């Protein structure tokens, strides 16, 4: 199965979503079967289909003052925050060539994030009924996907930088009163996102047994 990797770097959320949709269309047209898009975002809050406005704790004018856009999007889940301190992976995979099982795909995303954390000596956890990855009772990775014609988009964001957690206080992440944490917070040392993104690519490769992917930098 073809598996292409796209490193977008620090990119506006809307541009990355547009890019996902273009890749989605290529996959739908059978140009290739799978793509993994890696990126970071400028600060943004997104509300999935389950998103409730009361889960944004500040007036929209406050978000505007902080330069944070709010987008309502087609993924599952409630509200979340994305910022430059996260490593984000958008797997655009054609499940027609894997397994047509929505929950299995979500669980695989959790497991590969747990595997990614374990390489740093961190024990990531799944909590039943609370999709995502947790370190003890704090959330470190959030998941929300959309599937159209059995092709996935949107994906998983992993909190890496300690100094990019404050904006979570603007919302109730996933509609819950929870604390977020990051890789740096747990390790108590600095981590450069650019230096660890290949670890995540490797986890996707191992999970999905793809052929060696072709990497495109843009």
């Amino acid at each position: 199965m073809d598996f292409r990797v796209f490193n977008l770097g620090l990119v506006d959320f809307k541009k990355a979503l547009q890019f996902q949709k273009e890749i989605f269309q290529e996959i739908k047209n059978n140009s290739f079967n799978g793509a993994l898009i890696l990126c970071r975002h400028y600060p943004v809050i997104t509300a999935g289909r389950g998103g409730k406005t009361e889960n944004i704790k500040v007036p929209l004018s406050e978000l505007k003052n902080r330069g944070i856009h709010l987008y309502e999007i087609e993924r599952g889940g409630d509200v979340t925050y994305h910022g430059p301190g996260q490593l984000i992976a958008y797997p655009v995979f054609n499940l027609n060539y894997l397994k047509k099982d929505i929950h299995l795909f979500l669980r695989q995303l959790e497991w590969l994030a747990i595997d990614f954390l374990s390489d740093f000596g961190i024990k990531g956890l799944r909590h039943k009924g609370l999709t995502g990855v947790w370190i003890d009772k704090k959330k470190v990775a959030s998941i929300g996907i959309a599937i159209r014609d059995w092709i996935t988009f949107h994906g998983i964001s992993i909190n890496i930088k300690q100094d990019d957690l404050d904006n979570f206080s603007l919302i109730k992440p996933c509609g819950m009163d929870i604390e977020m944490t990051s890789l740096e917070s747990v390790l108590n040392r600095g981590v450069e996102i650019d230096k660890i993104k290949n670890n995540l690519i490797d986890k996707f490769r191992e999970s999905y047994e793809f052929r060696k992917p072709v990497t495109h930098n843009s």
Partner: protein
Amino acid sequence: MAKVVLPELGEGIEKATVSYWYFKEGEKVNEKDDLVELTTDKATFNLPSPCSGMLSEIYFHEGDTVNIGEVLAVIEESQN
């Protein structure tokens, strides 16, 4: 008449929630048009229209829970 049925979505998935209808009752649809979006866990997914015709009846509305195998809607097929 073609029935729009909620298909198997994976092991252990028994139901999903209707999150968005792309068409209203009485509207024309084309085969493979996105008809309805549903949600399970942290995922949304679409059901395409199985044929071209008129969406004559919707049995489950936004917010309703649907079991696998249940009929969501009926389409009166075009006579082409």
